[in-house]
């Protein structure tokens, strides 16, 4: 009697997936996104799918959401007026950043914005040293003066960030108390939001979190209210950058953790497929119109990181390691001054998009090249008369690409696709090599609107052995929303000296308690929470550390030792050597709690009708046009095989199978291509 719903908001469309647990079936729908008030689109989507499947709201037992509201806040610099109180002489740490400029050979480039105006950044005497001891007492009169100055200036909220507050938060807490005493301003302490070392990272993380929080809190409030109004009696879960879900209260307090909400859902879905298809290592390629998000599954688990970047600003929250590459169907092909063919980095994006969309695009794109090659069906984009847009695409391609290169229209288009594939392969290669891995060890899981069209050729380019195109690749990320576990993380700097298992145990206990409290607040039983522990460790004197997991369900001295052993091993794997005799130091302790979400095991549904819809002339390298069957993917049953060349169509996505390659539908309905 129950259904589970995932709602994935994108810039243009909101994808909704409903899993009917009893019928063991998945339903999909799409509705336009409604910027800037994205909550309306989310609620519309929920209404629409309930109506289409004739489901009463009372049957919804799980609701999960991937959002771009936090992402947009950071990308578009919708930063509210904030104040900052920090140490005397250091108020510009936030503005100086790491002192680099974003581009090497561009005199017109700009640094990321400082986020807090200098006039609202105030330093006060008071200093704590690297052992957490007080060097200079906090000057409370100076604090009071700073607080009243900020109150008068009309800032929305105040950030307090002082040196070594992750070791000793006395000064920060005292400043907080004085803010509360003197004003009714809200405030955030860096030691509470992100108690880790490196003052710039801690400060900017606290500032960004507060900025996003101010932006998202009304959004989540409206969503909560809308859901309650509909008679849906379960709380809304929000996908966070770490590939887990949490409640809207948590999503508000830790707002910065929602900035990779959408891409993380795709990564979770990719991991799920890699498990069911038994792929040891996989690269997830989620390619849309403007860009591609690349995630990595190693040994069956998502590769995670504790630091990312968005808009040149560091994001220091636990996250799924996702690389965004500026290449997609909308990437523009052009001829440079020396007569060379180039693709990107400029993109026609979704609006106006490629020429063949007929929405006013005038520059030739990768999608237009695919159209010229017969690889996509123009009716996929347009209703009604599409002839003019297709003619336009061919005309522009001829004039701007084929003629200057002295090639036929098709040869020119083929070259554009080859170049786009070679660029993508180079990016994927870099991602694996940086992890000390050979790209040949990975399988490619391709999804999103444009991924499955290019996947086979990209994988061949990289000497990969297999490609998987999952079920419903166009709305694959929304499926990830149904699969994600509830996950919350806590971390703090280690305050002890050396490798003291007992001290580490005490500090881990404190972290775990606070983590468990968060789960209990959300209505979970403490027993259902699986807690894992990690250490950030380095050789004394090194500047950056590695994160290693501690084995076992509980903290013991033996598990602690095993974690340190893993550090040596991992150091060897990544850097080529380990130094077991050198002193090791712990920088940060991390705990993660997860509560498992039920699996989605929907039957592979097959629709009736003709498998081969029609035949079309499709252009392939070294062969020219080949008569190619266009297959309705939804008619393919488990175990069915398709010989290339073939085009597979399904709602929202087209896949291409090159000649001499065979694909098979796996028992889970995914298309497996062995190369």
């Amino acid at each position, binding site marked *: 009697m129950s259904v589970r719903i995932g709602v994935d908001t994108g810039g243009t469309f909101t994808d909704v997936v409903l899993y009917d647990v009893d019928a063991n079936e998945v339903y999909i729908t799409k509705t336009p996104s409604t910027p800037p008030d994205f909550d309306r689109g989310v609620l519309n989507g929920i209404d629409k799918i309930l109506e289409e499947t004739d489901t009463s709201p009372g049957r919804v037992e799980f609701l999960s959401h991937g959002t771009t509201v936090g992402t947009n806040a950071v990308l578009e610099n919708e930063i509210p007026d904030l104040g900052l109180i920090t140490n005397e*002489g*250091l*108020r*510009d*740490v936030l*503005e*100086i950043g*790491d*002192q*680099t*400029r974003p*581009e*090497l*050979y*561009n*005199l*017109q480039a*700009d*640094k990321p914005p400082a986020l807090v*105006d*200098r*006039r609202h950044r105030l330093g006060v005497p008071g200093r704590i*040293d*690297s052992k957490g001891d007080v*060097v200079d007492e906090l000057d409370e009169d100076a604090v009071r003066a700073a607080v009243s100055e900020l109150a008068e200036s009309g800032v929305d909220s105040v950030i307090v960030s002082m*040196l*070594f507050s992750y070791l000793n938060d006395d000064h920060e807490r005292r400043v907080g108390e004085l803010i509360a005493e003197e004003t009714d301003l809200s405030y955030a302490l860096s030691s509470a939001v992100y108690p880790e*070392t*490196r*003052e710039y990272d801690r400060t900017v993380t606290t500032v960004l979190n507060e900025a996003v929080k101010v932006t998202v809190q009304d959004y989540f409030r409206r969503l909560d209210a809308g859901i309650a109004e509909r008679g849906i009696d379960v709380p809304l879960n929000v996908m966070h950058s770490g590939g887990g879900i949490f409640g809207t209260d948590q999503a508000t307090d830790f707002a910065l953790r929602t900035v990779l909400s959408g891409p993380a859902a795709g990564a979770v879905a990719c991991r799920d497929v890699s498990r069911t298809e038994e792929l040891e290592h996989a690269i997830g390629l989620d390619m849309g119109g403007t860009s591609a998000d690349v995630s990595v599954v190693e040994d069956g688990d998502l590769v995670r990181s504790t630091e990312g970047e968005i808009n040149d600003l560091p994001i220091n929250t636990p996250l799924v390691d996702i690389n965004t590459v500026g290449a997609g169907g909308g990437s523009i092909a052009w001829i*440079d*001054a*020396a*007569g*060379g*063919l*180039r693709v990107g980095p400029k993109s026609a994006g979704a609006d106006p998009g490629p020429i063949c969309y007929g929405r006013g695009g005038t520059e030739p794109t990768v999608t237009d090249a695919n159209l010229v090659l017969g690889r996509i069906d123009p009716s996929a984009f347009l209703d009604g008369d599409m002839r003019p847009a297709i003619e336009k695409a061919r005309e522009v391609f001829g004039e701007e690409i084929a003629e200057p*290169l002295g*090639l036929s229209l098709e040869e020119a288009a*083929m*070259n*554009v696709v*080859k*170049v786009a594939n*070679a660029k993508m*392969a*180079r990016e994927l*290669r*870099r991602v694996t*090599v*940086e992890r*000390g891995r050979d790209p040949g060890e990975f399988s490619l899981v391709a999804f999103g609107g444009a991924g499955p069209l290019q996947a086979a050729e990209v994988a061949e380019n990289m000497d990969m052995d297999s490609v998987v195109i999952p079920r419903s690749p166009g709305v694959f990320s929304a499926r990830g929303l149904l699969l994600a576990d509830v996950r919350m993380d806590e971390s703090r700097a280690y305050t002890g000296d050396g490798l003291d298992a007992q001290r580490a145990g005490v500090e881990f206990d404190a972290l775990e308690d606070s983590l468990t409290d968060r789960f209990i607040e959300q209505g979970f039983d403490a027993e259902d929470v699986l807690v894992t522990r990690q250490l950030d460790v380095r050789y004394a*004197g090194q*500047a*950056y550390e590695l994160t290693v997991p501690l084995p076992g369900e509980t903290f013991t001295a033996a598990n602690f030792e095993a974690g340190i052993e893993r550090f040596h091993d991992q150091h060897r794997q*990544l*850097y*080529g*050597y380990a*130094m077991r005799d050198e002193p090791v130091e712990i920088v940060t302790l991390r705990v993660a709690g997860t509560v498992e979400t039920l699996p989605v095991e929907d039957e592979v549904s097959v629709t009736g009708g003709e498998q081969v819809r029609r035949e079309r002339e499709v252009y392939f390298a070294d062969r020219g046009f080949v008569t190619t069957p266009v297959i309705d993917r939804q008619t393919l049953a488990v175990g069915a095989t398709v010989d290339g060349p073939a085009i597979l169509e399904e709602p929202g996505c087209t896949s291409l199978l090159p000649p001499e390659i065979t694909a098979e539908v796996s028992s889970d309905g995914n298309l497996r291509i062995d190369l």
Partner: protein
Amino acid sequence: MVDTGDLEIFRHSLKSVVEEMGVTLQRTAYSTNIKIRRDHTCALFDADLRHIAQHDIAPQHIGSLVSVVPRNVPEWEDDLEPGDGILINDPYKGAVHLPDVMLISPLFHDDEIIGYAANSAHHVDIGGGTPGGIPNDSTELYGEGLIIPGVHAVEDWEYDEDKLSFILRNVRESKMRRGDYQAQLGANRIGEQRFAELHEENGRENVETYLDELLDYTERRVRAAVEELPDGEYSASDEMDGDGIVDEPVTLVLTLTVDGDEMTIDFTGTAAENEGPLNCTPAMAFAGTMAVIMAFIGEDLPKNDGFYRPFETITPEGTMVNPSYNRPVAGGWEIPMRAGDLVTKALADAVPEQTIAATKGMVCNVAYGGTDPRDGDDYVYYETVAGGYGGRMEKDGMDAVQTHFQNTANSPIEELEDELPVYVRRYELIQDSEGAGRQRGGLGVRRDLQFYDHEASFSLLTDRTRSKPWGVFGGHAARPSRFYRNPGTADEAVLASKSTTKLAADDVASVQTPGGGGYGDPLERAPGDVLDDVLDEKVSREKAREEYGVVIEDGRVDEEATVERRQELRDTAAGTTGENA
């Protein structure tokens, strides 16, 4: 006729070879300088010693490998076996300064040399009398560290332990250095694997055809880009502080001649070589200049033999950009840094919309050391400090950034204070350090270090205390660099830009970097922007009034008084010659 699509794919494949080399080097290196600050590069050469690909992450390395490999390999190539490697850092054989050590490996496929992999990495120590490789008192190359003239140190992809241990015995923190040398070897080995694969896939003949085509294609692109610049002879010059031995300013002259699709970079007129370490090799002069020229001709041009063809560099012998044998070069990077500023100055009239005013224009090498009172161990540290960027036609200069060929990051204060016995007392923008302008220059940075409870040695090997970063098109000059001991106290002392100072316990050393020059007449700056800078305490009310002619009362622009004040300043300027603060 090569298929353009296939050629572009070949270009990407070739680029991924050097990128993989670069990533391998960075991942396996031990020093922060390589791992975090990415002070390294990798390149590939073909069997004819043509430069065919470069991993482009640190602009200062653009000219180094390309000047060393073709010049020296012919001497060795008859004796080279698979798996061999040669170490070299000799500035007088085409290299740069001693800490940049290069490893060159021949690449074999089917028993034939198909090319060479080379990489260069900045080692934090290379021996010599001063830790960190920046002695400011040496009058010969010998004082600056270990000179490696081209040593056959690797056989069968392993270091000859005799030779490596000889090098390591001569440098500080030898264990870390060993890791860095190993990393350099690993990078070349990956280069061989990947480059051999390219040959397997395409066949040797095709590779050669592709390479010919690629280099010609690159040349065509670079020529087309140079062609875009208006023809002409563009000259600029500036004074540098003395060399640390002789306290007299020395002149740096740069003339860029654009003639159709070719460009000459000519340092004729530059001062004679210095006795102290203010000299650079031609490779350094080229790299520093080219890093900025790149911004004028297109940022994503491939770096290979074809790239260099349209350029001629003239560095007269016996000048400080081409010193005679064994002159010291440790502070040499200050020269190409300033040459970068001269590129923007020389091209200002030709391409006003592209150029910028002068930047901080100094590398700012700072090193300090002593005995840590917390544990009695000796310590040494090296860092560089950001400064102002030049004003631009439509944008202000950035505050507090690295400039031109330099883009290395800072150390977090918490890392520094944990590691060293110092307190960073100030790390802030310097009010009024910018050159005023319609678009103002960026602000310089002040970094005050307090060395508590111990005596410390504090070394500077830098510049620009005399020549102010200039403004362009009526923009004003910025504040130059300044260095102090105990600033703002009774025993305040000015430190020279090339000096070593013994600090007493609890002394403060203050590094104050220059701002950037302004672009356009400051009297044309929008009063609202001046007000913002005053409210942000980036510009003082006094300076707003004196240089921008903007009168600010009670946190607001007094419009009427501003119109009056601006007229007054215009009248004064008309009465005198072009005032340039």
